[in-house]
């Protein structure tokens, strides 16, 4: 078990250190990369729990998807020499208070919960089980959230198209096209 503990402490330390670095870094892309490390370490925790599906989802959605998108938008918008201004006193005070409140809340909740040691070894979750519960309409089925997500995606797509379309007519009145 000692190997597991070492891994756990290593991953936790990585999560904490890189979370702090994400917040205090003054270069935007570095912050994004530290965030990537946090997310990858989190998925490492899931792997330790033998819940590989969630770990892989964490990797695809967050590390492979969200962080890539963030980096992409950073690449499009900012220059390499750009740096954040150090936050003002008021701002940092507020952030500190918010962070402290969150930390205290979660620590209290965790301490409140009675962890019971179980002898059951961590079980590998079967792919079929995940698939079936994702598409089941029973009590613990996920088909409704699944559908809701697809509606949300549809809405996002429509909105994206609408935004892209909106700038269309404005551009057709550009001077060069009149020349043509």
């Amino acid at each position, binding site marked *: 078990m000692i190997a597991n503990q070492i891994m756990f402490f290593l991953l936790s330390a990585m999560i904490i250190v890189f979370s702090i670095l994400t917040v205090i870094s003054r270069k935007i892309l570095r912050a994004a990369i530290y965030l990537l490390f946090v997310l990858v370490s989190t998925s490492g925790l899931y792997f330790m729990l033998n819940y590989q599906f969630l770990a*892989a989802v964490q*990797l695809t959605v967050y*590390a492979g998807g969200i962080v890539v998108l963030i980096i992409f938008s950073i*690449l499009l918008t900012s220059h*390499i020499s750009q740096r954040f201004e150090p936050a003002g006193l008021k701002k940092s005070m507020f952030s500190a208070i918010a962070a402290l409140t969150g930390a205290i809340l979660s620590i209290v909740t965790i301490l409140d919960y009675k962890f019971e040691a179980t002898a059951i070894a961590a079980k590998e979750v079967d*792919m079929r089980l995940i698939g079936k519960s994702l598409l089941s309409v029973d009590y613990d089925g996920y088909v409704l959230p699944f559908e809701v997500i697809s509606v949300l995606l549809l809405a996002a797509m429509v909105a994206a198209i609408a935004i892209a379309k909106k700038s269309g007519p404005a551009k057709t009145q550009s001077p060069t096209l009149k020349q043509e």
Partner: protein
Amino acid sequence: MPFDIYDFTSFTKWIDTSLENAMSPFWTTVTEMAIAGVLFILFYAVVGLFLVYAERKVCAFVQNRLGPNRLGPYGIFQTIADLIKLLFKELIPIKNADRFLFNLAPYIVIIVNFMVLGAIPYAKGLHAIDFNIGIFYIIAVSSMSVIGVLLAGWSSNNKYSLIGAMRSGAQIVSYELSVGLSLITMVIFAGSMQLSVIVEAQRTGWFIFKGHIPAFIAFVIYIIAGTAETNRGPFDLAEAESELTAGYHTEYSGIKFAFFYLAEFINMFIVASIAATIFLGGWMPFHIGTWEGFNRIMDFVPPFIWYLGKTFFVIWVIMLFKWTFPRLRIDQLLTLEWKYLLPINLVNVLIMAFIVLMGWHF
């Protein structure tokens, strides 16, 4: 079963038990990890160097040339000499570059490579981690290699690199869809995501033969999309020598450049070995129906050879792509993905699901 003579399960088990007898479970784990790590690093280096050599020879033969022929017989030591040269080359620091990210980028690419290599079955029992979501894991991890490319392009503080990185990003993000969907076609067919189970299911026939036309279409799409994902061949827009000189790794020199270079080849190896595992039966030998004698002979070829043979065949095809076709433009690249590969892929998934549902397969 005759080819169980090449079953490595008992061998690895024996190592495990003998280690456990000798030391505590903690140190057993550490030793096993160390052994696996060293083996993978060796494998990585050998395969990388060999692929560089193979690429040169293939391209030379295609172009009516001899290729490397000075160092050693047929120039086999050429890549080693090149590696030594790259090791001794100066690492040029870039002015105004983000030094930390600049140095980090090649390692991200390499680490992602290692994470995928561990999940590939090389033979029965020679399999570092056999997840029950193996394919999903591979898709998930390989989606991260783009981060290294993006970082390299951005932190070099060079416009060529930046254009290369942006192209590469758009390319990898969109082609991941095709890779994923074509693999999902085969997951539907196999009914499992576990790579060892998929390989085992091909004992009676490779999926490309068993899976009718949809499997073949999925194979073709996978090869195309895989080539695109590795930034190779007609899809090497991120490097685009004639436009961007070297794309995202323009500013890299010495061993850091070598990392990118090696990672590109290992990526190709990974794509080819996944194709071999899922479509061509992995380490399973080639069998023809009821030809008992023929099947017996095939069984005596070690699985590792089968696996490597199939992988290198796919690699050869990918190399021929690179040395035959002109490069695509960025919008054509995206058109190919969104207008051709994706719709075909979706229809293909449907057809495959239908075939599996009706039980119309061997």
